[in-house]
């Protein structure tokens, strides 16, 4: 039985994606990312000299500031900051610029479901725009579980509230390489199937979780292709201008 979604999408279909980079002039890198009506603006300043007090001075340090659309900063924002910070730390090459701090500022423009994945994607695009060295991108997707066991990708706010459980999953981006498949395998699985970050809400069975992860893999392929196309497009445009 297929699920009927309010906006007529199939369960595996993502909302229309839009990404524009270099939209702000002061930050060293900036990007705006929208998935349907959810829109997030990310700005990157850095690297700046010096690290924070308890941080390791032999590595680059990241600081994330999350600004909600309305209201004061509370525990929800602190948790999002921590998750984003740790995700960024795991994808960036920390040894290139030791003893520096890079600030990533996230401004929520509109929240219509799947906010944290949208912010992670926006932060990656902004980091690329700023030229921060990274190992790979972090591609984030929200998978939720409907009552009848179906996995639905990229829900909007109403769907998120109705669902019994949902998971935010972040994977490395899929690689496009000339070398044959066998060279990018770790533990019998392709490298892009490793989970960078996973945050779940609601109760689900362990098998359902793995089902969400599988569906997430399929979505990362299309998201990675979108990232690649978007970056190549702007590269072509800037090389024409310069």
């Amino acid at each position: 039985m297929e699920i009927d979604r309010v906006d007529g999408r199939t369960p595996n279909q993502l909302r229309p994606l839009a990404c524009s980079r270099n939209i702000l002039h002061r930050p060293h890198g900036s990007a705006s990312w929208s998935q349907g009506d959810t829109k997030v603006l990310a700005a990157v300043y850095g690297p700046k000299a010096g690290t924070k007090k308890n941080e390791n001075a032999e590595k680059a340090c990241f600081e994330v500031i999350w600004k909600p659309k309305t209201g004061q900063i509370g525990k929800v924002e602190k948790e999002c900051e921590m998750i984003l910070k740790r995700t960024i730390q795991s994808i960036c090459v920390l040894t290139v610029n030791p003893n520096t701090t890079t600030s990533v500022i996230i401004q929520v423009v509109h929240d219509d479901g799947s906010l944290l994945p949208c912010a992670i994607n926006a932060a990656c695009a902004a980091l690329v725009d700023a030229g921060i060295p990274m190992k790979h991108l972090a591609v984030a997707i929200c998978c939720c579980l409907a009552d009848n066991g179906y996995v639905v990708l990229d829900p909007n706010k109403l769907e998120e509230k109705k669902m019994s459980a949902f998971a935010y999953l972040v994977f490395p981006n899929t690689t496009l390489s000339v070398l044959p498949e066998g060279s990018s395998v770790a533990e019998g699985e392709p490298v892009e199937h490793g989970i960078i970050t996973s945050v779940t809400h609601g109760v689900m069975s362990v098998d359902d979780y793995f089902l969400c992860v599988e569906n997430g893999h399929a979505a990362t392929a299309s998201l990675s292709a979108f990232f690649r196309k978007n970056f190549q497009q702007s590269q072509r445009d800037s090389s024409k201008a310069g």
Partner: protein
Amino acid sequence: MGLPDSSQDLSTEMEVDAFRRIFPLRFFERHLSESLRPDARPLGKARDTIVNPGLVSTADGSALAKIGSTTMLAAIRMEVMTPSTDSPDEGCIALEFHMPPICSPTVRPGRPADAAPVISKRLSDTILSSGMVDLKELCLVSGKAAWMGYLDIYCLNADGALFDAALLSAVAAFSNLEIPVVALNDNGRIVAISGGKDEDNASIIEKKAVNKEKRKLTLKNIPFSLTCILHKNYILADPTTEEESIMDTLVTVVLDASDQMVSLYKSGGTVLAYSSAVKSCVELARKRAKELKQILGEMDID
């Protein structure tokens, strides 16, 4: 990292403590290659866990949970409040996790620890989504009065696996909780009764199941959690602060009594989690849930 040859020469001459401080990762990997950790635990084993209920006499429910050296004190205070209009039959639980400066040398007064609000939110999400406490049981008079439970968890000693210990202390505090007896007085307000005397004046409006005794909550689907570290091919269960600072990939699995997964939390980290690693973590969490269930069961009998 330093020249590998020079550290090898130094290691034969250096004291163990110095080696542990200067080359921490190498120190740990030496142990991991023998499938042990510096405190002689096998990789998949959690530290000794103790739960002591009812320590705080002024609170309606309390518990102290110790996992190794990590110590958490949870206390619940119940107050009567008016329920909200969208859920007139439900009470409410407000959870706060505190990390006072006593718990760790990195926490200073006046500046809240980074981890505190994050753990606080994760705990309240986990407890509410697991459905352990049925909020309808906290209702007194539909639409007019319901219980609000203020659950405060204090970290007294932070030695790794803070979320696990905090969740355990919260669960133990809830099972130790005795809801105070109240009565509806003539003005229509809820008044607390301390001794159970003076029943002629007050008409007691409570659920039919309990009359004059203090009431215990029925807890279903109790969540149990286990934090693991992923490092290369190794999976270490229940890390200490030292291990957490050296190896940064932590995975927390929360399972409930019916083997459903309440939460799988992995927040970044240098190691990517493949499905084999996730499955092993879930297995370790299952074993740990059985151990914790037994410990809580023994606590109730006492």
